[in-house]
């Protein structure tokens, strides 16, 4: 007679976990079908010369698209434009968002109204923002050059002069810093008031409180906004597409990486190459994000954490 199989006792934690899997099943299905599946498919496409029409006509080109990417001057140009923009807009957006939040965290009259006003731009879609600013940047009839004209400054052709075009996008991005501001505000309000009270007893002035309490306490929020800003900068598309079009404007000065990717995918019908560009972008963003994560050990402080 065989030994009767013993029924395994499932620990309660595992049973809870099984329940958990059932709850996340809908999301997992969605993720697999609509995100993970297409990602794997695009990786495959990046190894072909797929033109976007028939897979049967596509040939396997191995790493050809990736090799091309490294010799394609336009890729590097568009990457340079994107990096330049990111390096300017990211710190500026961080500082502007934080300063705004810091000011709106003070007891000022009509505070709720100011918060709403500053947050509003973040709620408007990129295309609408770009359309609005196109009018403002108009060199002859735009309000910016009109105001400059009042102080005898001959305003430039903002959207046509390659020297100025990136600054236009910088304006746009800083104008929409209200999104970050809200996150900073919530962070500022979660700093224990006891810390400020103790600092005051120790004789710290407001500036010292900002440097030694507020900023260190806010580093997790900075960290979050840097990651989001970094990804956002590399995904920048709707605004340049609306303001200067897919070609990136005069001298291709605003040919952001995603515009170039879009051109290959949907205008030049090089879906295979566009997939390679997308994966290259993914790797860049991943590496930069990992670097920021790694560096966070040095400068991000969590309340319960004891730094060695």
């Amino acid at each position, binding site marked *: 007679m065989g030994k009767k199989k013993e029924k395994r006792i499932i620990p309660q934690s*595992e049973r809870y*976990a*099984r329940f958990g*899997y059932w709850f996340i*099943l809908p999301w*997992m*299905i969605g993720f*697999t*079908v609509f995100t993970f*599946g297409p990602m794997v498919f695009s990786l495959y496409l990046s190894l072909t*010369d797929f033109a*976007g*029409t*028939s*897979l049967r006509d596509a*040939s396997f080109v191995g790493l050809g698209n990736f090799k091309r990417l490294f010799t394609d001057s336009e890729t590097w140009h568009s990457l340079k434009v994107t990096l330049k923009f990111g390096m300017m807009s990211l710190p500026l957006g961080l500082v502007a968002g934080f300063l705004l939040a810091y000011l709106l965290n003070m007891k000022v009259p009509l505070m709720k109204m100011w918060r709403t006003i500053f947050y509003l731009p973040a709620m408007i879609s990129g295309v609408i923002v770009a359309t609005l600013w196109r009018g403002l940047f*108009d*060199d*002859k*009839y735009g309000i910016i050059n009109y105001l400059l004209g009042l102080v005898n400054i001959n305003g430039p*052709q903002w*959207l*046509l002069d*390659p020297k100025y075009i990136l600054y236009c996008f910088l304006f746009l991005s800083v104008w929409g810093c209200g999104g970050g501001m809200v996150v900073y505000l919530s962070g500022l309000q979660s700093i224990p008031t006891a810390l400020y009270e103790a600092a005051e007893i120790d004789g710290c002035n407001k500036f010292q409180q900002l440097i030694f309490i507020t900023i260190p306490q806010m580093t997790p929020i900075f960290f979050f906004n840097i990651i989001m800003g970094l990804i956002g900068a590399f995904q920048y598309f709707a605004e340049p597409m609306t303001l200067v079009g897919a*070609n990136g404007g*005069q*001298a*291709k000065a605003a040919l952001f990486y995603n515009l170039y990717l879009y*051109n290959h995918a*949907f*205008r*030049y*019908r090089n879906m295979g190459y566009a997939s390679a560009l997308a994966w290259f972008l993914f790797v860049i963003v991943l590496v930069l994000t990992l670097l920021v994560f790694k560096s966070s050990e040095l400068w991000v402080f969590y309340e319960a954490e004891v730094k060695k």
Partner: protein
Amino acid sequence: MKKTFTVLLVVLLIASVFMAVSCSKGETTAKSSAKKETVKIQVMVGFGTGTDPSQIAVHEELQNEFNSTIGKEKGIELEFVTVQYSDAAQKFTTLLSAKMAPDICGPVGVMGVANFIDEWEDLTPYLERDNYDLSVFDSQLVESNRYNIEGESKLVGLPIGYYPSALYYNEDIYDRAGLEYPPTEWGTPEWTYDALYEQARKMTIDKWGLTPDDEDFDEDNVVQYGYDGTDWSPWRAWVGKFFDENGKSVALGMTDDFRTATMNSPEWIEAFTELERQLYVEKVRPRSSAAAGASLFGDNDPLGSNRLGVWEVFSWMSYAYETWDANFTWNIGAIPSMNGHVVSATNIDTFVMTKSGNHKDEAWEVYKWLFSEDVYNRLSHNYGSIPAMKSLQDKWLDEQKAVRPNINWQVLLDAGEYADNPNNESWVPNFGEVWDAMEFAMSSIIGGLYDSPEQVAEELNDEVQGYLDEYWAAQDAKASK
């Protein structure tokens, strides 16, 4: 627990693969089980005009008419499917990938045809089978959709209508400058671009009232320009006016086999130099293309601003006629000659049959019906184009004269004889990239971001040669498999 998770993940992956496969097969199954008697033929609209509500209504009217008459008789159901212009290429690509391509696409311009050149059916066998008489159309316009690639000739579409370019001018500005209007006869010997610049200089005025002929002319503060042109149409519309020593237009900028770029040829350098001349020597046109133009002239309609003497543009600008009527007196003149050649860059709309359509014979029946005289007339009317069918052109002329009797409409009709060949939008390898490179070269001159026309031509030629090499390397690799 790990095991459960792994099993779940594997099941999900299998399910997603199964779903993907079943989705693509579902169409085939559905089609094969469909009733044999009625075949649905889809006409995809959205590659050009035809998407306004009033135009959709005409399509629906035609659709109902076909389905209740000839369609019923032949077991064909016609359906017009409208997509927005901005999404059309992407949607068409998706439909092709999903093997759900529409049977017919149109109206589509030469550029739309060129973008998907491999996807269109050659109409020659159908035309030959039915002894279709092509002489009912302007022959120049029929040839615009004939392609000779690697020794293979194919005609992918018949012209449903055309939009020639001509000189649209503001009579009030001409009168104020005391100038004679441009001639209405094409090919008038003395009507050259030099003569046009001469006029345009007198109509270009700075804020002090000076013209480029005055010593103190303030070119940074111009309030009215004499001429505007190629920045509102593609570069090839301009370079197509230049001819080589064999009397052939150099519009393509490459050899006949499409393998070698010739965009640094003397004719191309001359075309760039002539553009430079308009902007920086004659100073008769705005320097920085559409955007600066928009500042001075208002969006999309320089002539409508009442601050421009002459605009060389395609006749699809008809949507602006009412605005012009309300603000000034305008008319149409012939385009001048460049080095003895007169060329009217022309946009041509067509309908094309897709190569991957499942019911080609039925699609051809629909195609023929769309090109039958009465339906053709309604369609070309619907798109605001001039009918390429010769028998309908007098009627078109009468209709135009009835609405605006003082306009020289005959100029547009006569332009058909001077249509550019090769067409300014016709196919070249790696079409999109080559197109963008040419537009970039043109905009660098208009924007003043260049050293010399020779440098622009050389750089363009190098870039385009790269695209050609890339295209042919891929083609050769495919052929060798």
